[in-house]
């Protein structure tokens, strides 16, 4: 078992898979296909902001793979 941070909203529970900078990588506890990347509001830790563009989404994905690759 591993203790993780949970973010609950819209009647769903997402756990924090990873945090890179302001990016949060979230996965639905009950549905592993329901994943998302959000930005945390610098002034409110519990406020999650959307990404701005397709490009930012791809860059954020690559940041995660780069981090995981670097740990191998």
């Amino acid at each position: 078992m591993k203790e993780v941070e949970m973010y609950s909203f819209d009647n769903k529970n997402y756990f924090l898979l990873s945090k890179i900078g302001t990016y949060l990588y979230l996965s639905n506890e009950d549905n592993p296909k329901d994943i998302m990347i959000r930005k945390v509001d610098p002034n409110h830790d519990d406020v999650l902001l959307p990404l701005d563009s397709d490009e930012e989404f791809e860059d954020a994905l690559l940041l995660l793979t780069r981090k995981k690759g670097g740990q191998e």
Partner: protein
Amino acid sequence: MKEDRIGIPDFMEKTSDNYYKRPRQNLDIEVDDDYRLAKENSLNPKIVQAKRSRKKLSIGKCVTAGIAFVTIASGVNMGVSYIQDERNLHNYLEPLNQVLVDNSGRTQGNDGYWINDVAVANTYREMIDQGEYDELAVAYFVTQRLTDTYEQDEADTIFDIALGEDRNEWAQKRGYSGIDDPAFLSESRTMLLRNMNSKDSQDELGAMLSDSVVAIDTQVKGMGGR
């Protein structure tokens, strides 16, 4: 199979140095759907007020989520040149990573790990002084490598000693809101790649000039021998 303007199938995919999307026709439809859903969720303009808590989950659930992210990242929209850039950047920064590895270890009981941040920082400073890396490379590597909460004190110390100042101030002096500004990592990556390519070009030019000198030298010797 698509044809480009000169009529050679897939010519651009096989030859272009520019970033391009991987052909999608062979991708698994399920991965495509997962990618689309993840992107829609991420770009959904709704600002969310979340309730935070902590919970224990099975390792398997965490691994499954990790695989889901990596699958959509590796399966969709990663240009081949982008992957090549990543590989080059990884190789370029590997000596910095090795310093980190050489100066870290597991704690007794194996429930955590330590980093000798002062030793890492001093080594990075020496590498900068000797011209092996510039400050940008060190700042980029430390920022994208030490991202976990429990690594932030070490990242602070490395910045303080190796780069001589607080990391947020260092970033702000370069026009970013702070070290967490996503633009910092993105733009630094671009600049590092540009510097690497420029250095490669200089090395190639140097090698060409060196070859020319050898050729001229040989010619002179040949003439002198007549």
